[in-house]
């Protein structure tokens, strides 16, 4: 399946991918409306900055996803593209998946609230917005 891969050599640490991720999840059509004037923490992708090295980390949509195995309410499943997605109506916010994921790719939505994670922009025609707006090809969406 196609996944988001990083080319850390080209990552600028600009964090644009994070903001496009927030926008994507917001379902808004006008970019600034997703933020209402202030930045919001991203759910699907996170840029690590360490001593001049930057790279973006996001869900690997693992072959054998531990999050999915651990989920107590059946809220996690794979969609037709292979992306591991969350059904917000089923998620009870127990955070088991957060503890299970070896990549730290799942973000809490608050106590007893549905978790947030990368769903490969299923709601945006499966065009990952982080990749589409990365200025330097530092993340790509391709087959392994």
């Amino acid at each position, binding site marked *: 399946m196609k996944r988001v891969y990083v080319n850390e*050599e*080209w*990552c*600028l*640490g*600009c*964090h*644009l991918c994070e*903001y*496009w991720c927030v*926008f994507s999840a917001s379902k808004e059509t006008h*970019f*600034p409306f*997703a*933020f209402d*004037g*202030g*930045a919001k923490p991203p759910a699907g992708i996170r840029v690590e900055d360490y001593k*001049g090295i930057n790279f973006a980390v996001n869900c690997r949509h693992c072959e054998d996803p531990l999050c999915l195995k651990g989920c107590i309410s059946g809220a996690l499943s794979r969609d037709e593209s292979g992306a591991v997605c969350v059904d917000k109506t089923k998620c009870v916010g127990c955070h088991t998946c957060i503890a299970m994921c070896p990549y730290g790719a799942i973000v809490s939505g608050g106590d007893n609230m549905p978790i947030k994670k990368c769903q490969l922009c299923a709601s945006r025609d499966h065009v990952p917005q982080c990749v589409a*707006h990365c*200025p*330097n*090809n*530092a993340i790509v969406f391709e087959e392994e």
Partner: protein
Amino acid sequence: MIDYIQPDYEVVRNKDLCIKCKVCVRQCANEVHQYDEKRDVLYADNSKCVNCHRCVTLCPAKALKIVKTDHCFKPSANYTTEIIKDIYRQADTGGVLLSSMGTPKDYPVYWDKMLINASQVTNPSIDPLREPMEIKTFLGRKPETVKYREDGSIEVEKFPNLELKTPIMFSAMSYGSISKNAHLSLARAAEQLGIFYNTGEGGLHEDLYKYSLNTIVQVASGRFGVHEDYLNAGQAIEIKIGQGAKPGIGGHLPGKKIGPEVSRTRMIPMGTDAISPAPHHDIYSIEDLRQLVFSLKEATNYKKPIIVKIAAVHNIAAIASGIARSGADIIAIDGIRGGTGAAPSRIRDNVGMPIELALAAVDTRLRDEGIRNNVGLVVAGSIRSSADVVKAIALGADAVYIGTPALLALGCHLCRSCHAGKCNWGIATQNPELVRRLNPDIGYKRLVNLVNAWSHEIMEMMGGMGINSIEALRGNRLMLRGIGLSEKELEILGIKHAGE
């Protein structure tokens, strides 16, 4: 000390749109944008802004624009804002004013005062999509005569020539003045396009030897990075005598741009200023030039054409005639509007002449003297579009060099601050954090797109004239007409006025 100089530009942030993502703060290497944590506000120090548009382009909310300040002096057509500020600047520092890229001064652009012909009724135009159209160009000395052997076969003396798929090359920009990623983008694009890029005078980074088939290596007065392998790494060797943006003076790459890799490539110690002397200290006459031309030929087994690059100056026709007799295979001429990584402002803005006049004068002179076939003629110094290329070829050039358009394709926004070494687009800088901003995978494709687009347009224009080979356009000045030019200008350009 009082600072007399107020900012030229102002950063305007639309607070309704800004999402406080701080991308602008992270991306401006000039540290214009600041974020105050306590007050949760973004603010800008306009005095540091060079108007490079990096923040504007990357702002995801499209919340930014840079405007020219309307803060003003009392208007004067004589003591303009620029003149007043330059005087303040020099009174502050006591130094020579430096600037970069091509002169912004309002000298006539003759390309825009020439019109191209097209066929109507009496001669057919050609559709380049349906009929063959040849823009392949050979650069170098051409044989004068063809001999028939007894058996009827022909014998021609062959000279080393460069073969270009389209009459456009990337002009010399040294590694040091531009980044390795910029060089890599140029080299890869040249390879894909079947043309050449030029190393400039900074030597050749070891990672770029693999693009040898599309490389021109330059030898300039500083002789940086010149050794046998380097000379043999290119398909042609260019002796740089002068550059359009700074005729008569050498170059100066500040020590802070000489990091480990540039130092190794240039073969000079780290952190030392790289100073190219104004003249080549072994060239004081055409005879001396001839010696260098032939030493380089000797070093490369007479297999490579030698280019001599000069700036367009008053006596250009006579100088070119001398070069054409020196054994050089190609003359490259660079006009006053040509770019540079750093030049004294007064020289850039006042010395030299427009390339159009120089080209016409040189081509006419070489033809009159019957030595035009001795050399290929390449022109540079603000070739901005395919129309400029067509006009240059019709005036007599074999090919053109493009520098500024190539950098624009790579993201340059012509902020003309290259000499500061903090190029926000990763082009004119050696700071690894900034160099990383230019990914050659993206850069080379943009260059290929640009040159391909121009090539298509060149073919369209040739087709319109009913010409199907670039050879038939070369020096075909009947295809050009002047518009709004004086008798003298028309005479020098060797063209008629529109309507004639």
